[in-house]
């Protein structure tokens, strides 16, 4: 057979999704149609701007609001009255007021589906392949796990999206990270993304959108894929994506907002055309081997400053680049560590299992499998990502496992990930956390964070220090 006269060049999944959303072009910028906008209490700035300019929400049915950042994670039966701090309470109320006023769908504090804005939309089928999703939050990258283009934007851009259901963008560069093989025993998707970030750096993905490819991701659950895409932003990329496949479709089928009947078939026909064509060219390619990745912990104050748990705190004197050496020294100083000390010697004060990175059912199962091996030696919190996750975990008896091991079983929200609702570390407190950012003060002024997987966090709880979960599991 002769090849077609004008063969279309092979396209990346990013190209395909991008091309389907272009309304117009002006001076190298594209006006894109936005399918869904996700907001939380922090979007108050966008609403204020919207109202100041006398504008309205153009497509309220395509905007979804979530009470998550400011909700308390205990005492929820008292409703709003349970929020002691008036400013925090006001943020929760403001979102509810704005949602009602502008006709936006709200997953409010008392909603049985309530949860974090990156956990609930997949559960509800709001997140689907081929979509362009903008969120007023950098971890909107999470949704790319379904084969859509999803990224965070600031308040001005969110105001623009709400007012017009569009956004001006320039095309970003594409980057493919390929990982092949089965991860080793005790190695989770969190360890894989932490290893990627340690490898390419916190600015390694700047200006790029990452597609994660290879058998490691194909064999990964949807939950795991979300964990990986979630932290694309910690590698500097605005978005991460993974080609949709049978797992994606099985996850979505019958979810409340997922297409039904003939619509499902039509949607599937479109979704199946999305994966990058063979021969598609990416601006940058990176490959790693799953077998080389070990359970990771961060020792420093950015997500790149991590190492396998078997490693040690680096010595700034061994680092050639003076700026990196200085940055390393400053991180070690803030974290109150000593160069050369084993990471497994770091004693912790607190454990946090939660956040949009690691608070889905699979994460809680992994943590519970470790928690059942002992008793927590330090205050340890489990904060499910949504009410659905919470109920599912309770049906499986995971809450009982956690409680028996001395962990606190709390209500869904962002909680100690960003310390904005009152849950926070005290100055000098050190936390093993399944969240995504170990920035200075992120979990409370003066707090110190070590990012780990759910299983590693549970292991740290049982030992009172960072520890290799593999040893615990092997001896079980």
């Amino acid at each position, binding site marked *: 057979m002769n090849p077609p006269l004008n063969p279309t060049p092979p396209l990346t999944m990013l190209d395909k999704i991008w091309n389907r959303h272009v309304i117009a072009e002006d001076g190298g910028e594209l006006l894109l149609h936005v399918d869904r906008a996700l907001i939380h209490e922090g979007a108050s700035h966008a609403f*204020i701007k919207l109202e100041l300019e006398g504008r309205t929400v153009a497509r309220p049915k395509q905007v979804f609001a979530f009470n998550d950042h400011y909700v308390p994670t205990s005492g929820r039966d008292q409703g709003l009255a349970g929020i002691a701090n008036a400013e925090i309470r006001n943020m929760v109320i403001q979102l509810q007021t704005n949602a009602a006023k502008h006709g936006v769908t709200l997953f409010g504090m008392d909603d049985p589906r309530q949860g974090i804005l990156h956990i609930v939309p997949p559960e509800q089928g709001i997140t*689907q392949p081929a979509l362009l999703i903008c969120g007023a939050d950098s971890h909107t990258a999470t949704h790319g796990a379904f084969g859509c283009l999803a990224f965070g934007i*600031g308040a001005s851009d969110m105001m623009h999206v709400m007012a017009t259901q569009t956004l001006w963008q320039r095309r970003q560069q594409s980057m493919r990270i390929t990982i092949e093989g089965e991860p080793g025993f005790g190695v989770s998707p969190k360890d894989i993304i932490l290893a990627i970030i340690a490898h390419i750096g*916190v600015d390694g993905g700047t200006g790029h959108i990452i597609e994660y490819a290879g058998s490691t991701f194909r064999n990964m659950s949807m939950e795991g894929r979300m964990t990986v895409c979630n932290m694309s932003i910690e590698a500097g990329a605005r978005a991460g994506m993974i080609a949709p496949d049978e797992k994606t479709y099985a996850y979505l089928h019958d979810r409340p907002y997922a297409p039904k009947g003939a619509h499902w078939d039509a949607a599937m026909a479109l979704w199946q055309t999305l994966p990058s064509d063979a021969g598609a060219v990416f601006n940058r390619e990176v490959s790693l081997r799953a077998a080389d990745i070990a359970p990771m912990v961060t020792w420093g104050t950015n997500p790149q400053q991590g190492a396998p748990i078997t490693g040690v705190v680096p010595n700034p004197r061994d680092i050639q680049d003076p700026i990196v050496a200085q*940055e390393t020294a400053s991180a070690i100083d803030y974290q109150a560590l000593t160069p050369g000390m084993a990471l497994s010697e770091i004693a912790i004060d607190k454990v946090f299992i939660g956040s949009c990175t690691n608070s889905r059912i699979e994460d809680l199962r992994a943590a519970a499998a470790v928690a059942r091996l002992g008793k927590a030696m330090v205050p340890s919190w489990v904060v499910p990502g949504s009410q659905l996750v919470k109920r599912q975990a309770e049906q499986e008896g995971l809450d009982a496992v956690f409680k028996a091991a001395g962990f606190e079983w709390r209500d869904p929200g962002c909680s100690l990930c*960003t*310390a*904005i609702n009152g849950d926070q570390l005290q100055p000098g407190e050190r936390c093993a956390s399944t969240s995504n950012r170990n920035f200075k003060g992120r979990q409370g002024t003066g707090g110190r964070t070590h990012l780990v997987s759910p299983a590693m966090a549970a292991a740290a709880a049982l030992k009172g220090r960072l520890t290799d979960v593999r040893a615990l599991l092997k001896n079980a």
Partner: protein
Amino acid sequence: MHAFTTLSAVAAPIDEPNVDTNQLCPTRFNKVPRGPAYARILFHDQRFNADGSEKEHILNAEPFNRAQIIVADRNWGSGSSRESAVYALYEFGIRCVIAPSFADIHSNNCYKNGLLPVVLSESECEAIRKQLRESPGATIQVDLAAQTVIDAKGQTHRFEIHPVRKKCLLEGLDDIARTLQYREAFGAFEARYREERPWLYSAST
């Protein structure tokens, strides 16, 4: 949005790479409505003790407390998408940040608020920071139309900027006015789109 044309001002060197938006505006201040209060919020936890007294920080002392330009290191503004980080810079008086690289969302947020992010090479930024440390209070000139930075020693550095961004900043235009010119194209696009993907618009239950 305020226009940005030229600026001649005191510049402050900040040597740390990867300065994240949590440092520019600690999370607990996100709820503060935009206004002058943000001047104090900039780098709050590095600049102030818990009791409100000042810590030693470059932006606290003369002449850098008058800085309108920051010369930084790579990956400025990483982390959270919070636009409040830009409000903090802006209310403090900063109108331009010069760095070897910016995190994408933050850079975008700067443009949307009339604050110019300028990318110069790592060695240029380092050299300028050195000048500023050696002669505190030295001024730097930024000319957006010419796309140049004149450093404290009078040397000219050229920078790149996307033409649309340049125009918007020079004229103080915000995006919505531009977008509304495409109302018809949007209508046509949306009608076709909805027909092709009816499932996106059917009610959930």
